[in-house]
């Protein structure tokens, strides 16, 4: 496996950052949004340009600075990072287009600020994807927390204030209070934090401080919303819907999940976790989160909160997959990272489209809307099926792998958890969609869809959700590449 | 609260006592302080600088750098009083003038500078008390001698106790005496605020300037020996002369600052009648 020293990863990170001054300084909305889209397209192109090389087994790396002795600020593109980057950068374009429809449709204030922070958030997401060591990841992780704060609290009202507070207390509190000490401990002990497939922590899982460090890291990356550190996510739903869609279905929460997977696979690794008690703890909390999250979602009245709890449950799939430490488990976890992103973003975009078109937020109010907004609800349905894991949706592939993985592992109970959760998913999604199309009262059949800018991106993501089932080629290939690295290394 | 203060004081005192346990006897000529560096000063002062008063040679040469800052400290104090107290816009609404020959006081409503140029009138304060004739006469008689003595103290610092600080203070005191026995305005007539400001800056400037001159001539700062390049003397005498120059600077600053501190403080920065 050869490493290519190239500045390209840095450009991927910087490109949206470079767009920020342009976005702020431009007074004309059209031009401003053009910059955003342009940056998004360039970013995607750059990410794609690295795909062939990474598929053929190379990786890109770039040293930016030295932060501490033996601890550089370094970017490195490996298959796993590329998957995340691909998903995030592609969905950024989609969401940006959607934002145009949404923000204009609702005549939101401070749109420049909105687009600027969105761009910064995307930069840091790319940074997380490409981070070559734990500290680099941590730096981008913190920037992501901070840059999304103005997005979450975009409305600047009392509700936003309370949610923003919660958001920061959870995210900054855990990262400073849990991740930082653990990271310093690991650095002190191993004189470096470079990610290595299989982990740089040596085998021998009985070591108490290392077990604690592992748990601190997994729970410290609170963006993954493992219970009991989950309640920021439903609160963050006060944000405008595109923010919820991209950040709380893709960038932010996936960054958390991604960090946890990195921690499990690239910091501690199989050798250490095999015998440790940290692993069962993680599995226990993740399983509990899957079940409780799905159960709580059943009782939500507000559509976005429902989706938030569904996200909480689904994110823990990824953690479960990685912590199973079996081939299919890991593959399933990483696939879930991509598939859930497409599915959930479709759902969120749907929720937003409904809000823009009708102003309705509650689950009860959706009854009959399927008749007036068939395209929106059609896409919504596709997204829901993907989350549940029914073929021919992309979500199925991930669940399949996860179930296979749980068969391989010694923890058969996980299979039960996954199946139970799928049933719960059915229980909260299907009635919702059903009632939208088949209301208990007659609705006049006049079609009144959301704005085109909202509708098209949603249909695109729905389409991709389906396409990914048939052509999972890049992702599947990358994941197998990753796995072969583990075997090779 | 008072007990807390007492406790604090007793605590500090006990640390001081503790330290004293180890002190050398008072006046012990063999204490470390008397053996390490100070003999060098005593032995080398004459040959290095040709100044018999070792205090002066240490003050202005061996540790001349400290003394430069010491002068700056004085300057700073004057500056601080200026910045803190000086009020440029007088709040006095009415003005009073006294006809010197007759002692008649004119009260003019509103501000005026009409009579300021006149030799027959002097501007006074509303609470003005005429200065005592005995005081005035005696101080008028004494002040020249005080000033002469001050100059002597400055100039003779090489050979006897004295030097810039002492001389400067005496010189300043003579002017303050004038301001006390007459009034502030009389003192200011002799040496104006502007003059004091310029003098105080000039004095320190002379000191630092001599140091910088040594620098320009290619040696270390305040290394007076190098002045022999521009003075018709050998390096040792150059040191002696350098010390003298510095002392003059010190005296000027000390004098000016003493007087200006008195002026600002006694008149609360208005520079009117004073005490």
């Amino acid at each position, binding site marked *: 496996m050869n490493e290519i020293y190239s500045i390209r990863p840095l450009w991927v990170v910087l490109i949206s950052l470079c767009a920020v001054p342009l976005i702020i300084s431009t007074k004309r909305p059209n031009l401003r949004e053009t910059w955003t889209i342009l940056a998004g397209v360039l970013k995607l192109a750059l990410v794609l340009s690295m795909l062939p090389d990474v598929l053929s087994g190379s990786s890109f790396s770039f040293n930016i600075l030295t932060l501490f002795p033996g601890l550089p600020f370094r970017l490195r593109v490996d298959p796993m990072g590329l998957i995340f980057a691909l998903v995030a950068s592609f969905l950024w374009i989609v969401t940006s287009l959607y934002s145009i429809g949404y923000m204009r449709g609702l005549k939101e204030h401070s749109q420049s600020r909105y687009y600027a922070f969105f761009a910064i958030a995307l930069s840091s997401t790319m940074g997380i994807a490409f981070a070559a060591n734990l500290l680099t990841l941590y730096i981008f992780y913190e920037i992501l927390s901070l840059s999304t704060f103005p997005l979450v609290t975009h409305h600047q009202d009392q509700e936003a204030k309370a949610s923003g507070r919660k958001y920061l207390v959870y995210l900054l509190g855990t990262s400073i209070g849990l991740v930082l000490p653990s990271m310093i401990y690991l650095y002190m002990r191993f004189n470096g934090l470079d990610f290595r497939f299989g982990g740089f922590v040596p085998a021998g899982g009985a070591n108490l401080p290392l077990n604690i460090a592992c748990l601190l890291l997994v729970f410290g990356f609170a963006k993954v919303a493992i219970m009991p550190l989950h309640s920021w996510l439903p609160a963050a739903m006060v944000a405008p819907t595109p923010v919820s869609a991209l950040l709380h279905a893709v960038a932010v929460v996936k960054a958390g999940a991604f960090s946890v997977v990195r921690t499990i696979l690239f910091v501690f690794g199989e050798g250490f976790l095999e015998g440790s008690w940290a692993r069962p703890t993680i599995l226990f909390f993740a399983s509990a989160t899957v079940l409780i999250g799905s159960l709580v979602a059943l009782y939500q009245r507000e559509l976005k909160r429902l989706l938030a709890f569904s996200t909480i449950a689904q994110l823990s799939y990824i953690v479960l997959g990685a912590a199973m430490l079996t081939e299919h488990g890991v593959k399933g976890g990483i696939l879930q990272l991509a598939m859930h992103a497409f599915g959930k973003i479709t759902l969120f975009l749907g929720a937003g489209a409904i809000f823009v078109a009708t102003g309705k937020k509650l689950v009860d109010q959706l009854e009959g809307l399927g008749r007036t907004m068939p395209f929106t609800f059609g896409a919504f349905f596709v997204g829901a099926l993907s989350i549940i894991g029914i073929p021919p949706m992309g979500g199925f592939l991930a669940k399949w792998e996860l179930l296979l993985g749980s068969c391989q592992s010694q923890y058969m109970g996980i299979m039960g958890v996954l199946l139970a959760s799928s049933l719960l998913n059915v229980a909260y999604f299907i009635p919702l969609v059903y009632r939208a199309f088949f209301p208990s009262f007659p609705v006049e059949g006049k079609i009144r869809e959301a704005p085109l800018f909202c509708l098209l991106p949603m249909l695109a993501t729905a389409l991709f959700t389906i396409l990914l089932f048939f052509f999972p080629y890049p992702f599947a290939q990358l994941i197998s590449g990753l796995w072969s690295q583990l075997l090779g290394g | *609260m*008072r007990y807390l*203060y*007492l406790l*604090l*004081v007793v605590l*500090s*005192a006990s640390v*001081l*006592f503790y330290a*004293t346990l180890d*002190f050398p*006897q*008072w*006046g*012990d*000529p063999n*204490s470390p*302080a*008397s053996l390490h*560096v*100070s*003999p060098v*000063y*005593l*032995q080398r*002062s*004459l040959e290095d600088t040709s100044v*018999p*008063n*070792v*205090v002066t040679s*240490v*003050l202005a040469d061996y*540790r001349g750098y*400290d*003394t430069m*800052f*010491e*002068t700056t*400290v*004085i300057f*700073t*104090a*004057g500056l*601080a*009083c200026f910045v*803190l*107290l000086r009020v440029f816009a007088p709040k006095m609404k009415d003005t009073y003038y006294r006809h010197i020959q007759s002692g008649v006081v004119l009260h003019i409503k509103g501000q005026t500078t009409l009579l300021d140029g006149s030799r027959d009138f002097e501007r006074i304060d509303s609470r003005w008390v005429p200065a005592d004739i005995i005081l005035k006469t005696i101080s008028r008689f004494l002040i020249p001698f005080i000033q002469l003595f001050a100059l002597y103290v400055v100039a003779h610092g090489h*050979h*006897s*106790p004295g030097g810039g*600080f002492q001389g400067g203070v005496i010189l300043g005191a003579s002017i303050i005496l004038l301001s006390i026995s007459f009034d502030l305005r009389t003192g200011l007539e002799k040496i104006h605020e502007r003059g004091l400001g310029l003098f105080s800056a000039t004095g320190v400037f002379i000191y630092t300037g001599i140091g910088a001159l040594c620098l320009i001539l290619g040696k270390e700062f305040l290394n007076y020996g190098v002045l022999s390049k521009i003075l018709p003397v050998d390096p040792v005498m150059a040191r002696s002369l350098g010390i003298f120059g510095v002392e003059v600077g010190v005296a000027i600053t000390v004098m000016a600052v003493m007087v200006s*501190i008195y002026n*600002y*403080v006694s008149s*609360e*920065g208005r520079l009117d009648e004073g005490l």
Partner: protein
Amino acid sequence: MDSILEFIVGRYNYWLYILLMMIGLYAMISKNNLTKKIVGMNIFQTAIILFYISIGFKKGGTIPILEHTSHAVEVSHFVNPLPHVLMLTAIVVSVSTFGVALALAIMIYREHGTLEEDEILKCLEQ
């Protein structure tokens, strides 16, 4: 007993400076009137000057002014000049601090019409 007495008598200058210093310190921290505090500050500084000057003293020593003629200087005949030099600086510093403190006190008086600390604090709280 004798040794203790000797210890006490032989270092009486130190006891004096400690006493003086504590008087100054006490005045500074406990007095209510700002002028008294300023005076205390001055006493405090003076005590240190006394301490330094007494370090430099040698029994049987005279002021450190040499004769031009003498070549070999008998060091023990002259008191240590260095503390004197240092204390000249310290005196100047204390005078300057005194000046600045007085200027500040005048500013305070101008503003509050009093120099009693408790009255000023009361005034500030309003």
